[in-house]
Structure formats: structure tokens, C-alpha cells
């Protein structure tokens, strides 16, 4: 059992948790993730570690309620416990002094882009961050991103805050302005990561994305998280989750993530049904 020390909503449906996990807190490096399981009948699901405090023995995760498990997680409060938290898993981000680095976070992906941006800053990079969201209320970690950036930009799809448009448009603007960009990290929804890869490809800018395939064990056993990178099969849980954006087959990733869409829908409906019953009683 892993105790939740604090739980606060950063935006509607996006919640930040600090969880007691001293061993993981001590070991964790940017880019790594944990597998969680909320109950005896719960599924195992991965979430990237956003931050950690080895002194306090806590890790921070940020969850967007998208499926049954993440919604259940987001209902938990400080003082409650999580049945299983395993990690830190995955290969840490490759951090070096690349020169000028752009860290792009889309939606809750910002939670994953943030620790790597911080590590890039610590390694001596000139760090530009682009923090994108659909609308102002969904912008998360604005202050945190600013604190590790030499230049910080916010973009919103509806123009309600910061730059009016997509993160890719802001990135293109930076490139067009003649800035020399040496490294791009992009984390967010699959279409966003794919779009960023296409923006940087013509310029040969090294670009890394963090992938989110379906996982079960997360430790290198089941093979569920296989992704196509170049001509090779890679396993996100041990070879990744970060890969060269210009080699990733994003369509295949998006396709494979849909395998349980019917079951997920059934699960959502069952949950909605239970909620209605609970509301009636």
C-alpha cells in the first residue's frame, strides 16, 4: 500500500498526487514511469513520474481522468492509499548539453515534459518550453515550466491565453525566426507528437517523443507495449518510453492503442450505470 500525501486538481480532470514511495523517489530519473494498480481487481497502468523528493520519500504523478482507472485514481484524496506502485521503470531520458533545447508539452503531456525540461536546464541547455492546452483553464504547471525555462511560451487552441494556436505553430515560428534549435522533446497526444516530428524533420533537428502504448507488467515480460521504430520492434517499457520521433510509426501506435476501445466503452458504461444506481439510493 502506498499512501497519498497530497492530491490537488491542477485543472478540470487533471490531478496531481504526491505518493509515499521512498525507494522509487530515491532512484527515479527524468523520463521514467511507474505502474499503478488501485485495487485487487484493478488493472495495471503506467504514469510518468513528474517529480520526486528523495528527502521526503515521495514521488509526484499527474493524472488526467481518461479511462476507468485514471478516473478512479482522480477520485482518491490525501490520506488514502494506492494498492501497488512499481518503479521507476523505463530508460531515463538521455540528457546532455545539446545547446538550445525546446521542450513541448501538450495537455497533460506537460507533466511529462516538465521533469525532462528541468533536467535539460540542469545540464546547461538553453531551455525553451512550449506549454500547450486546448484552453486557458487546462494549462498546467505554468509556474514550474517557467522556473526551468530561459524562454517559456503558452499556447492555447482557442487563443484564450498566450499564443493563439497549436504548439507546432509556435515551434515553426521559432524555427522561421532563424533560431538555431538543437534538440526538441515533444510529449502529448499522438497527433501532436506526430505533427511536431513533421515540423522538425525537414531541418534534421533531433526530436524525441515519449510513447504511451498499452502496458501490462511494464517490466519487460509481456510484450504488450511493442512499438515500431524504424524497421524494428521496440518495447516501450524497457527500450523506451522515449524514442526518436522521426523513426516512430505513429499510426501503428494509434491503431494498437485502440484494441480495447469496445471493452473500454463497456467498462465506462458499467461505471456510469453504477454511478446512477448510487445516485438513486
Amino acid at each position, binding site marked *: 500500500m502506498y499512501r497519498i500525501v497530497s492530491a490537488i486538481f491542477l485543472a478540470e480532470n487533471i490531478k496531481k498526487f504526491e505518493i509515499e514511495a521512498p525507494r522509487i523517489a530515491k532512484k527515479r530519473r527524468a523520463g521514467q514511469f511507474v505502474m499503478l494498480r488501485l485495487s485487487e481487481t484493478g488493472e495495471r497502468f503506467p504514469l510518468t513520474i513528474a517529480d520526486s523528493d528523495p528527502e521526503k520519500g515521495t514521488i509526484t504523478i499527474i493524472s488526467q481522468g481518461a479511462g476507468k482507472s485514471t478516473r478512479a485514481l482522480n477520485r482518491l484524496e490525501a490520506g488514502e492509499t494506492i494498492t501497488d506502485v512499481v518503479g521507476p521503470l523505463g530508460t531515463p531520458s538521455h540528457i546532455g548539453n545539446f545547446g538550445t533545447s525546446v521542450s513541448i508539452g501538450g495537455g497533460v503531456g506537460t507533466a511529462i515534459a516538465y521533469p525532462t525540461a528541468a533536467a535539460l536546464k540542469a545540464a546547461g541547455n538553453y531551455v525553451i518550453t512550449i506549454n500547450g492546452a486546448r484552453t486557458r483553464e487546462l494549462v498546467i504547471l505554468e509556474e514550474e515550466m517557467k522556473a526551468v525555462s530561459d524562454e517559456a511560451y503558452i499556447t492555447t487552441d482557442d487563443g484564450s491565453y498566450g499564443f493563439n494556436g497549436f504548439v507546432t505553430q509556435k515551434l515553426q515560428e521559432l524555427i522561421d525566426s532563424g533560431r538555431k534549435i538543437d534538440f526538441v522533446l515533444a510529449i502529448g497526444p499522438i497527433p501532436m507528437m506526430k505533427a511536431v516530428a513533421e515540423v522538425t524533420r525537414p531541418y534534421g533537428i533531433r526530436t524525441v517523443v515519449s510513447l504511451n502504448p498499452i502496458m501490462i507488467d511494464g517490466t519487460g*515480460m509481456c*510484450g504488450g507495449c511493442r512499438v515500431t521504430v524504424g524497421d524494428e*520492434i521496440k518495447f516501450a517499457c524497457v527500450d523506451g518510453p522515449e524514442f526518436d520521433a522521426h523513426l516512430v510509426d505513429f499510426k501503428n501506435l494509434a*491503431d494498437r492503442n485502440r484494441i480495447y476501445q469496445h471493452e473500454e466503452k463497456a467498462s465506462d458504461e*458499467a461505471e456510469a450505470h453504477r454511478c446512477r444506481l448510487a445516485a438513486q439510493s
Partner: protein
Amino acid sequence: MDAKNITTKERLAIPRQVMPAQDPVLRAGNFSEVHLGLTPELAQMEALRCIQCKDPVCVQGCPVNIKIDQFIKLIAEGDFLGAARKVKEDNVLPAICGRVCPQEDQCEKVCVIGKKREPVAIGNLERFVGDYERLTGQRIVPEMAPPTGKNVAVIGSGPAGLSCANDLAQYGHKVVVFEALHELGGVLMYGIPEFRLPKEIVRDELDGLRKMGIEFRTDVVVGRTITVDELLEEEGFDAVFIGVGAGLPWFMGIPGENLIGVLAANEFLTRVNLMKAWDFPNSDTPVFDCKGKNVAVFGGGNTAMDAIRTAKRLGAEHAYIVYRRSEAEMPAREEEIHHAQKEGIEFMLLTIPLEFIGNEQGWLTGVKCQKMELGEPDDSGRRKPVPVEGSEFVVPLDMAVISIGNGSNPLIKQTTPDIEVSRKDTIVVDVNTMETSKEMVYAGGDIVTGGATVILAMGAGRKAAAAIHEKLSGKASSFNEW
């Protein structure tokens, strides 16, 4: 007939006793165990078939040299608990090994009776004594040496780790077992299905080990959560045993393998066994809905049989085994092949997949196959399959499960570079002691051998425990005696 006065001729006249089993049609629709176990009467009768050879070759045929003649004699005399105790001197998990060991290739293969008749059902008898002990609630508490004050970390709670932990505890060492998953048992829990090995049996064995003072910690991925060096240098362990099992599954490298609906046997079985996806949506983890669908498993080993029989139980309309050689070359146990056939599994032998076919949405719709014929024997001594020109055909499929083996678990290699690994990334050990290239670190099971059997892993765990004990106590010990 009684055990004392029976003549050899009378023994030889007794037919091999058939273990009651669930009806094949019935069982293909449930996850309950196929075999129901021998009754005490059947077990005693079967035990009387053993002619008590002066030089029991069956003992040599067993990877851990269980005193087979002696435990069978005790069964014949009706001393079932004594028999259990005798088995447990060499094998701590008889209820498990009695079920999953390939006895027909080991002890029963060399049984003298088996030369002219059917061999003594050693596996069924082993299972019987393990079950008898459990079901009658008379767990045998093994003799424990006084505490030595030494601490040993065992990494992985599968067959290798559990047998190693058991022996070390009996030698008097404090043992802590670390498991990466949320549930203990390794492949016994995530890999082997309920209908072949009920999970209750594994849990019961784990309870027994806990009562011996062995400590278990789940959710610890060694190499990630804690390293081997930290165990030795900071956590106060005097030795470490690595039994982390096999790793990532192999794929065939044919076109279309990444279509939706193509998955590895490890994933399919883990979803159903460990995550209880058969009970979706009561269990949160889903599995591909097999009801009324066409499912094929590619491969011919025990895991392939487990996977296809699982798909059948989940309601598959057509459940195929696609294997490139003939039945004789299949690595699966004969018993498993027969069970599968009786349950309605369709075997496409001498068939090789060329390409998976999908629709525009990326879902699997079929597989293009080619017929093979057997040519000259290859390096493995098995006749090499050769493609038959112009024999291509397409099988409509909704799910394909790849079951052609596993590589090694990659984490130890990634995180503990000073442990020497082979070209295949298995850990290199001294075969006599199971010691790795790193001092006080031992390894055994699939991480050393590549995919093998439960009993070989257990044998390796025991050999390592004996060597660790010798190193820690400065005393020589044979692993068959404590």
C-alpha cells in the same frame, strides 16, 4: 493385495490407473482444472505397480533426484504423509511439479515397467501426495536449522526463486524474496493457466514458505527499484540469487505482425491468468473478446497449448494451432497436445505463416500460410520443414497469438553490467554452483537456460542454495541433504 506380500507378477498385472478428468466438452467451456486427481485407492493401486527396482533409474531421470522408489513404497503402504515428506526432501513443490513436469521425458521415460507396459504414473503419484498434504490440512513443517545470522536476497518468486528460498531458509538463513509483479509465483501465476495449475495451490505453497519465516516483498523491480549492488552493500544481504525468468517475447518478423489483434502469448496469458481478464468487467483488465471468433496460436510448445486452450475457453469458434513441423516434433507435452485435441483445438501442422492480413483500420482479418513438408534432419535432429511451392492459402482470423519463445529479461543486464551474460543475454554461471561472474551473486532458471521447465528451474534454485550455504557457512553440503 497389500504392499508387503504382493509378487512382482501381480504388480505387473495391474494396469496403469487412469486419473479422473473433466469431460472434454464440458471443460472446454470452463477454467476449472482438467484432471481431478487420484483417489487414495487409485493412488495405492498405482503405487503397487512399482516393482521397487534395486537401482531405480527413475531417480536419475528426475532433474532433482526425488527418491521416487521410496515415496511410492510409502504410498503403497498407505503412509501418504510419509510419502509427502519423502518427496519434499528433494522437491518442495510436489503439487505443482506433479502437474506441470514433463514426466514422460524424465522419470517415466526411463521407468523399467515402461519398457513393455505403460510406466508407473510417477507424476500423478507426486501430485497425489502434494494434494493429500494440502487437502487434509496436515502441512509438513520442514526441519529448520538454527538461525545462522546470514541474509540472502532472492530476486524473483517463480519456481527457481521459491525452491532456492525454501532451501536457504531450511539451512537457517534469513531469506527475503523480491517480486516485480503485485502477485507472487512468477510464471506459475501469470503464465500457466488455472485449468492446468489452480492458483490456489500456488498460494497455499507460498503460505507454507511464509510460515518458514521467508519474507516476501512485491512491487520491487530489482535493477530499477533497488540494485543488486545496493542489496549487497547497503541492505545487508550476504548473497543474492537471481531467478527473474524469461523476458520479452520473440516475434516472427513477418509482414502485418503489428496489426491490431496480433499479440504475444505472454500478453494474452498474463491478461487472463494474472489480471483475471476472463472476469471482465468485474476485473478491470480486458482481453480480446474471443466469443465466436477465429483464433490461431503460432507455435508448438506448452505455452502455445496453454494459449489456444485459453482462447477456446473464452469462446473461440475456431481455435487453431499453426505449427511448421509435424505433431511428432512439437515441443509441447504429449498430454497437453491430446487434451487440446479432445477439446476441439484444430491443428494446422506443417504450416508456416507468411503474412498477416489486415483491414484499413489496422485490424487483423487473416493470415496467409504456406504448407511445408519435412526434409532432412537439421541441427536439432528434427526433420527440417521445407516450403511446398504454390501451396499458399489464407485463413480468416480475428486474433493471432505468437508463441515462439522468449528472450531474456533485459533489466539485470541493463542495470548490473558487471554480471556476465551470453550472446543471448542469458546470465553466465558456473554450472556446479550457479555462481555468476559477480561475487556472492548466483542465478538460475530461465534467466540462465533460456525458456525451460519448472523443474529445471527448481533444480537450479536448489543447487544455488547449496552453494550459497556452503559459501556462507564455510561448510560443504549436498543439496539433497540438510
